[in-house]
């Protein structure tokens, strides 16, 4: 099965269903999703609230398991993996950017970026060097010693992006990354992510209903009631 995937595919979702139980009542969050994300894509999963965007992103990111169906990341089927294996896949292949930034409040900006590199066992000197380079590249070099509570939302999200790409992931998943930012800051952040996509070839998958995000998508999946109702390329 894995051999079927062509080399340029980074994500393949096959017939994925996700059913939650709300007080014993089954609720179908995803109903037979099929999609493919290719390397270097800048994809957006859009849709109204409750359409299943975040659920789909969580399943692609191995944070959640589908009730049915298969997920392939970089050609590897992941739905059947155990917790330890999934943590390892997330560490090595996926970077996450969250709506609420989710930086560790006890670490400063540089340490937050170094954290994922530390989990991969990269030596301290190398971590620091790479962390500072990334911060300079993302225009937040002067924030190295700042704790999250000393930074603005936009600054925190840039640190979160730096953290997400610090381990050279194959894929960055961003869940509503601009939802807590003003439009000017959101635009700068998206510029940055586009730049990373162009220059470093990092694949981005967003879940968002922010028009600013949607208009930059190279590929747009529109989700409604747990189903993809539209899949547009080169929008």
């Amino acid at each position: 099965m894995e051999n079927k995937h062509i080399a340029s595919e980074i994500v393949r979702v096959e017939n994925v269903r996700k059913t939650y139980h709300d007080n014993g009542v089954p609720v179908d969050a995803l109903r037979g999703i099929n999609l493919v994300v290719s390397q270097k894509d800048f994809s957006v999963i859009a849709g109204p609230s409750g359409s299943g965007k975040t659920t789909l992103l969580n399943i692609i990111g191995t944070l959640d398991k589908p009730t049915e169906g298969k997920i392939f990341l970089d050609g590897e089927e992941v739905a059947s993996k155990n917790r330890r294996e999934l943590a390892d896949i997330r560490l090595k292949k996926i970077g996450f950017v969250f709506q609420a930034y989710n930086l560790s409040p006890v670490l400063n900006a540089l340490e937050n970026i170094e954290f994922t590199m530390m989990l991969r066992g990269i030596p301290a000197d190398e971590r620091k060097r790479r962390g500072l380079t990334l911060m300079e590249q993302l225009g937040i070099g002067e924030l190295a010693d700042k704790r999250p509570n000393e930074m603005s939302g936009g600054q925190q999200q840039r640190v979160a992006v730096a953290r997400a790409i610090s381990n050279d992931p194959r894929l960055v998943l961003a869940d509503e990354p601009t939802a807590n930012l003003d439009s000017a800051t959101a635009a700068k952040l998206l510029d940055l992510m586009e730049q990373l996509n162009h220059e470093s070839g990092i694949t981005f998958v967003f879940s968002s209903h922010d028009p600013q995000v949607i208009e930059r998508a190279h590929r747009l999946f529109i989700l409604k009631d747990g189903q993809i109702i539209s899949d547009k390329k080169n929008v």
Partner: protein
Amino acid sequence: MTSKIAWRNILRNKRRSLILIISIMIGVIAMILTDAFSVGMMQQMLTNQIGADAGYIQIHKSGYQANPSLKNSIADAGLIRAVLAKEQSSCNVSERLRTLGLVSSASNSAGVAIVGIIPGEEKKVTTIHKYIVKGNYLSENTDEILLSTATAEKLRVELGDKVVIMASRLDGSVGSEACRVAGIFETYDSGFDQTHVYIPLRTAQQMLGVPDRISEFVINPYDTKQTDLIALRLASALPHDDEVLTYKHMLPVLVMQIQVYDETIYIFYAIIAFALLFGIINTMLMAVMERTHEFGVDMAIGMSNKRIFTMILTEAIYLGIIGTAVGIAVSCAIFIPLSHSGWNLATFSESLNSLGIGTTIYPILTASSLINTVLIIPISATIGAMYPALRAMKLQPVEAIRTV
């Protein structure tokens, strides 16, 4: 970096960490000081009994320990004296003749152990001379007697008064002597005081009609750690009809009491560790629940369960180590001055004296007490953190991230 994060998490909620550190510290202080005072108290009981009467080693005729009668006294002490002469460089020796008898005054009489001693030599092996509260210690070859305060009060006699001592002789007749009260003593052991009187050895031998007999040799090594070794040497040099006993044989109840304490202290340690365990579980569980969202994010970015477990345990170990270190420091700050001045428990003098302890307790801090504390408390902290850490490991990343 894991340890840096653990440390910063400790500092994050200073009040909660401080409360936990203080509770660990109190546990440590309770463990160290309770043990130090208990060991000090028992050591004093032992030292007082050895010092007041028993000595570290005694030599008797075989069977005397089981039946301490005049019949079992040593008739020819020449060989023993010769053997002991070779030990002159390692110990002090004194001879005694001891029998049960009656001491009477015009008003009353009391059943006592009459101990005939060589006053000058006795000073080197026991401390009875230090407990004289009135009058003087015995002189050689006189008709003087030392009574305890309790006995003097019972007989209603004062210094210089005459009392009569009586005891059975070997042939069954009754021997008696009239003695003048030269001194009154008061040890830490009220039971001992009520049952012992001291007279010169010659007076005792004369009263009992046994001019050459003695009941026991009392031997005190200069280095008391050599007690067992010297006892073994003496036993091998003496014939089998002489018994060489150390204080462990002479004071079996007290020695057993100390052994029992050494074992039961672990129950006390377990109670403290158990109480701490729940405190740590509670605190760490709160810390984990408050940080559920963060653990979810950590899991999302690839932190393994093992690392999350290690991070929580590291926090608990740090708290345990800090609490233990502060507890040891405070314990030492309390212990050091008290080990010099002692803890005056005069309020409990009656019960302490009935146990043969002075009213001032000098705590003794043992290496085993410190080692046990250093091991038990941080280990308890680690065990206490395991349940919260296991709970954190079981979190589902997606649910944990949703937790606010």
